[in-house]
């Protein structure tokens, strides 16, 4: 147990600590900064050794930066995936509309692809919004298998397309959405 510190001394330690936590992400600082500084002061008040506390403070702040940055990146990736999922849904609806409008003149592959695209987008959005959580681990397995298949098919279509720019664009959209989905799932 260290000798009692004066309130002024504790405030000085807290002021330095507050400056130090300025390096942590803003969202974390706004949410927990004041509490964190108060807790630092509490530890000093209760007799924690300042030297030991400061030695622990640096690795602790690195932990905060590492974990909160990873969280922000993950959140951004989820938002990007949500937006990217609108691509397959939109493409699927266009293909579906063409299939209905020109019924009999388009290959059977058109309506099948349209349905697969809409399903890919809707399934991804459902997974992101936790609507499939009751499937527990199976939801993630189905999601990863579906996105992997979409990535393979999308890549083949995008890279090997000799049937015009339309399918190539569709392939790129599908592969990009699926790739992003796998990144989010693997995080």
């Amino acid at each position, binding site marked *: 147990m260290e000798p009692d510190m004066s309130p002024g001394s504790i405030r000085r330690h807290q002021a330095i600590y507050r400056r130090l936590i300025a390096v942590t992400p803003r969202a*974390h600082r706004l949410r927990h900064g004041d*509490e964190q500084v108060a*807790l*630092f002061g509490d530890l000093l008040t209760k007799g924690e050794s300042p030297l030991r506390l400061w030695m622990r*403070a640096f690795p602790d*702040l690195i*932990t905060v930066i590492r*974990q909160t940055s990873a969280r922000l990146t993950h959140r951004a990736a989820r938002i990007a995936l949500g937006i990217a999922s609108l691509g397959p849904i939109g493409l699927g609806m266009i293909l579906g509309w063409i299939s209905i409008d020109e019924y009999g003149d388009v290959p059977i592959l058109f309506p099948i692809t349209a349905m697969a695209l809409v399903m890919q987008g809707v399934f991804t959005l459902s997974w992101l919004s936790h609507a499939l959580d009751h499937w527990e681990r199976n939801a993630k397995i189905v999601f990863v298998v579906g996105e992997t298949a979409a990535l393979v098919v999308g890549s083949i279509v995008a890279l090997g397309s000799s049937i015009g720019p339309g399918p190539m664009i569709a392939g790129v959209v599908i592969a990009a959405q699926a790739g992003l989905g796998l990144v989010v799932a693997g995080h």
Partner: protein
Amino acid sequence: MPLPTSHFHILFALAEEDRHGYSIMKETEELTHGDVRLGPGALYVALGKLADQGLIEETAERPAPDLDDARRRYYRITDDGRAALGGELQRLHRVMEHARRADLGWSPT
């Protein structure tokens, strides 16, 4: 999925009673005989994650004014948090049972 160590101990501490950050930190140290020492930053990152997952929540209830400190926020475990803690304890219990049966040359003291 197993709970991260810090999340498990925070839920454990809050299962007994509502607590503020300092109290959670001290309870965790006591429970683990000092093996788990959460720094202020790591503690609040974990509290933020648990709150986002709906496993804990901030409580508006405060202690008596003479015992209260306005800077402190108090946290409470939710029903989902209790379920997650129960699941983790169940998982640890199964591991312990397996370890007992497996004759690892170790026994709990």
